[in-house]
Each structure stands twice: as C-alpha cells, then as structure tokens.
C-alpha cells in the first residue's frame, strides 16, 4: 500500500516538475497537459520498478523511457507536435542531474588531499559519471525505440489532414 501511495505522490510531483522544466524550453501551450500525464506515468513506473521490484536505476530508466516514448508517439499527433516535443519534456524529471554535477564536484575534490582521498573521490567521480551517462543513454534509447517501430506515425505528427 505504501508503494501505491508513494507512486501516486511520485506521479503528482513528476507532472509538476515536467511542466515547469519544459516551460524553460518554450513548448507550445497545448502540449503541457499531455506532457504532464506522460511524465507522471513514466516517473511513477520507474518508482515502482525500483522500489517494489528492486530494479537498478539504469534498467528502470530504460523501461520508463520506453513507455514515455510509446505514449508520446500515439499522443503527439493529437497535439500536432513532433513526438520529441512531447517526450523530451516528459523525460526531464528523470535526467540524472545530481549524478552529473557530483561527477565534476568529486573531480575537483580529487585534488584536495592525499592518496586515500584521491581514491575515494576518484571512485565517486567515476561511479557518478558512469551512472549519469548510462541513464542518459538508456533514456534516449528507450524513447527512440517506439519512434523507430512506429516510424510512419511519429514523423507525421505535425501533418494536418
């Protein structure tokens, strides 16, 4: 039951986060509701996969991004926007931002002490950096798979018939 309410809360805040971060990239207004819904579905799926099934962050991100890509391919034509204009904003709450800046923070800290500190911080730099890269790559692969499978639909989204 905790997982259920946790997922609901996760979905709610992910939706707000995606709309807010999307607004920085000037999207057309009509994509906001679609993008919030897709982000909520994707992020809460990742939450459930990681907390209920104990899945690793990288794999869970791949699954969530695939679902986001799938939803975007089918919902994007309704908003008359390209699939990536819907799916990229929806992915924003999953961007491993903390891993990204910790990579460089620990890189700086490598130079501050002796050998033991260097090993510790270099390890942190490497593990954060690799996790960040792997998650980013998996997110891009996940969101691209549906676009390639449903090529006809996804590149016609902006066509008005």
């Amino acid at each position: 039951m905790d997982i259920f309410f946790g997922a609901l809360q996760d979905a709610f805040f992910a939706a707000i986060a995606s709309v807010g971060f999307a607004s920085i990239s000037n999207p057309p207004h009509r994509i906001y509701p679609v993008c919030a819904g897709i982000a909520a579905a994707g992020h809460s799926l990742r939450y459930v996969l990681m907390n209920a099934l104990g899945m690793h962050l990288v794999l869970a991100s791949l699954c969530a991004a695939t679902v986001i890509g799938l939803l975007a391919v089918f919902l994007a034509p309704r908003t008359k926007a390209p699939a990536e204009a819907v799916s990229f904003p929806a992915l924003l709450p999953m961007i491993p931002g903390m891993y990204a800046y910790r990579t460089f923070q620990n890189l700086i800290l490598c130079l501050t002490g002796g050998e033991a500190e260097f090993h510790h911080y270099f390890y942190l730099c490497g593990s954060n950096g690799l996790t960040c890269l792997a998650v980013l790559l998996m997110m891009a692969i996940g969101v691209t798979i549906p676009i390639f499978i449903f090529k006809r639909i996804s590149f016609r989204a902006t066509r008005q018939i």
Partner: protein
Amino acid sequence: MMGNSLSAGQQGGGSHATVKEACVFLSEYASALLGCGATCIRIEKNVHRMAETVGVDYSMTIMPATVQMTVWDKDRKHSYSNIQKIRKSGTSFNINTQLSRLSWELHDGKVTFSEAVCKMDRILQTRPENRWLVLALASVANASFCRLFGGDFISMGIVFIATLVGFRIRQMMLEDKIDIRLAFVCASFVSSVIASAGYVFGWGTTPEIALGTSVLYLVPGVPYLNSMSDLLDGHYISFLSRFLDATVLTVCLSAGLCGGFLVMNLRWF
C-alpha cells in the same frame, strides 16, 4: 504538389535563380531548426521532404555552428551552395513544432514556395514564453523535484526560494547578453548559498536534499537528450558538440555549487 515545384518560367530568372532561392531557403530552414534545438534526424527528414516537394537535389552537412548545403536542379546543370550560420534562438519546441508543420504544409500543397518563405520569417519571430510564467513554473518544478528526492515540506520551501532567486539571476544575466557560463556559475552559487539555510538555521529534517536539488533547474536536460538522440542516429559531430556544450554548463553549475559550499563552510559530500 505540382504547384509547389519551382519551374524556370515561373520564377522568371531561369533555372539558376530557382536553385539559388531553394538553396537559401532550405539552408536557412535547416539552420533555424538547428538553432531551436531540433535533433539531426528531424532536420534531415524535414529538409528532405521540402527538397523533394520543390523538386531539387541537395546535399547537407550539419556542423555545430553552421549548415552547409549544395542544391542541384534535377538535370544537374545548375547548382548553388550556401554556408548558413546557425540561428540561435535558444531551445524552443514551439518553433520546432511550427517549422515541422510548415514542411508538411509545403509538401501537401497548402502553401506555395514563396508563401513558405514568408511564413518561415513569421515563425522565427515567435516570442519566447513569458519570463515571469517560466520563473514561477520552474521554481515550483524544482520544489516538487526536491519532494521526488525525499525532501520534507520545509526543504521544498527553501528550494522554491533558492530557485526563484537563482533563476531570476540567470534570466537577467542572459537578457544582458552576459556569457551563459558566467550566468550559470552565478546562479548556482546564489541558489546553493540560499539553500544552505536549512543547515545554517537548522530548518527541516532534510537540509542535504534541499542543498542537492537547489541547483537542478540549471541542468541542461534537453541538450543532453538531443545529443544522445544524435549519437544513436550516427551524427557524431553534432553529438559531441551538443554533449560538450551541456557538459560545460554542468561544470559551471558544479563550480558555482562548490563556491557556495566554500563560502558557507559546509562539509563536502
């Protein structure tokens, strides 16, 4: 569809003028898409669609700061080349969407070639989102991001204020045409100093989450995603340049954050 193809007589300037017009339009179109943060696969699809409609052959190279294009007529008698500088409008899904739609409208014969040229100019005039709305939405977004990482409501409030001030600084510095990297360092420094209030005054039970999430609004998520999309598509130069751009901004925000830690005399995590 026939109505859109350029013929020599129609343009009155012979085939070469036709090819020139097509080349200038297509290269400006591609550079506008590149400038508003479209993925390379999108640029290629859209340009290909329009070139087919207009009835010309083309070759295009997408570089980080320019688009190079050569357009031939179908008989391979005339060609015209143009190296078009990127048109920086900042990431804009709105312009991306409208330009993509324009390519279909031309393809489906809803607009003629000359109408498309005018329409593209109008699309590029599209004003960015209202900055106060963006400021409010981004602050609320970062506060809810803090919640996603497990922060309590007091931490959310701290992050909201930190983002509000930091994002406004970023906006003001970018409006004054100050270097974007300096703007990122300053914004993340100020945000992290404000977010350290949780530590300084002992507010809330999760001060470390407040501090950690306070700068996340600066992470260039869309450029990272674009670069990965280019990587998967085999556009390695574009992938590298976009990835490095985003990495430089991430380094800047880490630097600002480290400065904030130093000034507030906090323990590194």
